[in-house]
């Protein structure tokens, strides 16, 4: 505790820490750089795979691949339009590029290049975006809170929002094998390992029921599936029985599995590390409306605002992504 805090008798303020703060809980099982290692493994089996980055290799775990395959790695400099134009050019010659930068730069800065150079000709270009949603305390310049909203409108693009190291390890070879462009919301560094306890395997385009429950059904993606599972355990102590459905592929969306789970008397809640606009909630809502279910859906999502800078635990609590805030919201809904 700092002197100032001790004098005032208040708790110390948390620090923003590094650009990419970990959202892993203390003592949680993690895997180091799962994307980098998965890409190396996939590249050992598929000699068409190449890697690129825009001066963020070390920060997107691409450096693992660069060390393993220096001749198959291309540093494009801090030039995101070149990064994705060149990725399309590499794909035109039959290669399978994985191109990494932060999600904010991919979605906001280089959209035109992804849309016209890769998506329109349906090339196998794999976009790897770091810092999706609220996974950094650096403020709006680095927080890609609307990346899925931007990317969902791009025809041909597959969007994957992985929960943990298992999802990432299993998704990478499937992204390489799938036709057309993909966008992976990267979790990097020491990434929690969560889904191994649920007999789970990642299948591109599929939602999976991780646990059943009679009172509430959570539909979640990304790191919010980890929080959904934690919240489900916490709610059990309140005698609330919660099912969790993980939907790592946002587009194309597995509406059949999700609608079957929603079309019950249970309270339906979506949970996402993204703005309430244009992400998982609206994907689910449009499927519900299209099917004419007439069912209420409660969103747990980031507000339609530019978010504060600060420490991740502080911000997750402030904007409703923490387990505590999820539990409180569900109990309030159940009255």
């Amino acid at each position, binding site marked *: 505790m700092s002197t100032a805090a001790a004098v005032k008798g208040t708790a110390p303020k948390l620090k923003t820490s590094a650009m990419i703060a970990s959202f892993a809980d203390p003592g949680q099982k993690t895997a180091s750089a799962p994307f980098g290692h998965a890409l190396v493994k996939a590249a050992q089996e598929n000699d068409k795979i190449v890697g690129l980055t825009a001066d963020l290799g070390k920060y997107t775990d691409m450096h693992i691949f660069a060390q393993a395959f220096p001749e198959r790695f291309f540093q494009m400099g801090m030039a995101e339009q070149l990064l994705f134009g060149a990725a399309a050019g*590499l794909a035109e010659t039959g290669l399978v590029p994985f191109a990494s930068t932060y999600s904010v730069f991919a979605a906001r800065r280089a959209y035109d290049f992804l849309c016209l150079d890769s998506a329109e000709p349906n090339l196998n270009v794999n976009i790897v975006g770091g810092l999706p949603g609220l996974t950094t305390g650096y403020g709006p310049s680095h927080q890609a809170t609307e990346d899925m909203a931007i990317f969902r409108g791009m025809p041909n693009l597959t969007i994957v929002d992985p929960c943990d190291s298992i999802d990432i390890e299993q998704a990478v070879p499937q992204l390489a094998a799938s036709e057309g462009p993909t966008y992976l919301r990267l979790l990097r560094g020491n990434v929690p390992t969560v889904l191994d306890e649920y007999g789970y395997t990642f299948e591109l385009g599929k939602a999976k029921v991780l646990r059943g429950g009679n009172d509430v059904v959570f539909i979640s993606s990304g790191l919010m599936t980890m929080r959904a599972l934690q919240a489900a355990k916490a709610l059990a102590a309140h005698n609330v029985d919660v099912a969790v459905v993980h939907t790592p592929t946002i587009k194309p969306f597995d509406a059949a599995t999700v609608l079957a789970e929603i079309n019950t008397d249970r309270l339906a809640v979506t949970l996402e590390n993204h703005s309430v606009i244009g992400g998982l909630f609206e994907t689910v809502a449009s499927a519900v409306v299209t099917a004419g279910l007439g069912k209420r859906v409660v969103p747990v999502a980031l507000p339609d605002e530019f978010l504060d800078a600060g420490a991740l635990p502080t911000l997750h609590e402030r904007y409703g992504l923490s387990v505590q805030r999820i539990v409180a919201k569900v109990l309030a809904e159940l009255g």
Partner: protein
Amino acid sequence: MTTTTEEAQMTATQETMAPTTERIASVSAAAYRIRHHALNMGEVQGQGYVGQALGAADMLAAVYADQLRYRADNPEWEGRDRFLLSTGHYAIGHYAALAEAGIVPVEELETYGSDDSRLPMSGMSTYTPGMEISGGSLGHGLTIAVGMALGLRYQGSGARVYNFLSDGELDEGSTWEAAMGAHHHQLGNLTAMVDINALQADGKTDTVLRTEPVTEKWESFGWYTQRVDGNNMAALLQAFDNAAAQAAAVGRPSVILCDTKVGRGVPLLEEREKAHFMRIEEHEWQQCREQLTAGFEGTTGR
């Protein structure tokens, strides 16, 4: 080093032989046919980017009738050189060149810009055989060309990559990102050709956004830079020969800056007030063709 036209030609004579009269005549005839096709396509549409096609016809002829390695019966042939049209609206000229090359049937050109045609107004790879990329959103071509050149080199291909861009595209930051990238990666298999017609959508280039000094810019980015009269076939072929002579898997990328004249070859259009989208009256098309033919026959002495 500042490379004026004269100096480029001087350097050229040291590096490569001057193109023969027969070769110049043969490629000039191809340029004439490309211009003729473009006028016919423009007439079908009643409008179009005819001025740009006429201005760039010599550059397109130099590529398709002289430089590019391709197979007309197999546009996807793996060993082909890649020609990337960054300026999608120049498609009218590119289709004419593809017809000259035998990749698109001449009789198909009349479908230009019509519903269900393989020849849309703005060029797209998904529509047309021989069209490598979807241009049109300007400033994309050179970034894609960098990736293609990297990919071909990595896979051991000796194919070269040509990117056609316009001086208007020098406004786009992405063009300069790519210029740096090509130099950094020493893409000696990449040649950019810039059509400097000094005209953009809103007016003359120097009133829209000054791009000069263009030669010095490319030189300072580390490119082998030549600037020529893009409507002088002898100078164009010499420049392409020089670029080819220094092309290598690992080496300097090269750029040929081509000063061209909008409407070139048709005095009626050369003298008309320059516009990005030139209006031509119904009765003028035949007059344009006659002027084009008269001019061509005049130069060839027929």
